[in-house]
């Protein structure tokens, strides 16, 4: 009897500990995303101003924030917002620009390993570029959990909504947002995030390829295809075997080096 009581007590304790750990991870994730949140608020306010000019109500904007929750796609939507709304074109544009989320989702698979479908379906909605990048960086250096990811998502969704709504309300007051370089906020934050993804000299060839492909695709192709073309094209570079490169060091050494970040198990 005593053993049974001890056993259930242990289960209860484990569950309680897991919950406490989850809340602690959410808190950590939210805090880790606060610095990037400041820039999210900055370009969110720019989106709010643009939305107000297009006659989008703050309620529609809030619905967009909560249901779409993807900055660059929302910028494209607002850009295309001209009645009668081109619903099909808009959906297709969002599909193309957010195609990276499929790859982002796939890259998070080791983090979600062993979690229930409900857990995955719930948390994956709040994955944006920023909290994904912050979580991946944390995961690579010291390990992170889905709670950390969720905390960042909750933090950013709140900041994103507040920033866009503030921009929407103040839209009339700031007549020249470009004077404060607010239009550069998006490029600035993504530049900083890109730097945090640098893995050393082995990234030179993929990154140069990605940049050239993206600039060329943006110039020659309509819409937002350049993100997918540059991203996939650049990432294909390390897949192509390079004979001169293999002679310099054993294949096994480069393999283990490449495999290091994702090989780490979820703590």
């Amino acid at each position: 009897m005593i053993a049974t009581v001890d056993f259930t007590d242990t289960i209860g304790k484990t569950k309680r500990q897991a919950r406490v750990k989850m809340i602690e991870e959410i808190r950590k994730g939210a805090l880790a995303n606060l610095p990037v949140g400041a820039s999210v608020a900055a370009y969110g306010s720019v989106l709010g101003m643009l939305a107000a000019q297009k006659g989008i109500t703050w309620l529609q904007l809030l619905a967009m924030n909560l249901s779409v929750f993807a900055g660059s796609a929302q910028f494209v939507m607002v850009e295309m917002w001209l009645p009668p709304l081109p619903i099909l074109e808009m959906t297709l544009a969002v599909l193309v620009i957010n195609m990276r989320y499929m790859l982002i989702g796939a890259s998070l698979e080791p983090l979600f390993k062993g979690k229930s479908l409900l857990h995955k379906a719930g948390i994956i909605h709040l994955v944006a570029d920023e909290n994904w990048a912050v979580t991946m960086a944390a995961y690579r250096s010291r390990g992170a959990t889905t709670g950390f990811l969720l905390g960042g998502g909750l933090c950013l969704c709140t900041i994103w909504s507040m920033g866009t709504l503030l921009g929407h309300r103040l839209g009339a007051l700031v007549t020249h947002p470009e004077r404060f370089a607010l239009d550069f906020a998006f490029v600035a934050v993504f530049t900083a995030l890109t730097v945090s993804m640098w893995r050393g000299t082995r990234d030179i060839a993929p990154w140069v390829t990605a940049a050239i492909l993206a600039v060329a695709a943006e110039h020659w192709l309509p819409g937002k295809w350049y993100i997918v073309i540059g991203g996939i094209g650049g990432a294909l570079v390390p897949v192509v075997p390079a004979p001169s490169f293999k002679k310099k060091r054993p294949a096994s050494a480069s393999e283990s080096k490449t495999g290091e970040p994702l090989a780490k198990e979820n703590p």
Partner: protein
Amino acid sequence: MNSLSPTDLSVALAIAGAALATYGLRLGGLLLAEYLPRNGGFRRFMEALPGTILLSLIAPGIFSAGLLGGAAALTTALCAWKTRNLLLAMVLGMGVVAAGRWLA
């Protein structure tokens, strides 16, 4: 009756379409990842992808922004690399653009 106008319906459809497309990609990527190969070329591809996608997102913008945009992006990148402080890097980059425009 204004709240049920065709305009509102199209707004609802536009937002719903974007939301469903985005959520489908997010969850689809996560669920499909389990069926994707986990080593060799595909793995190298997946590991290089985060950086190349982020770079592709900004490269055309920086390229078309001219000298000022390039200088600001370089400032942002250097600051982010040296300090690992995203906010400071962003404020510095925006400061370069704002100052450049103010001087022009």
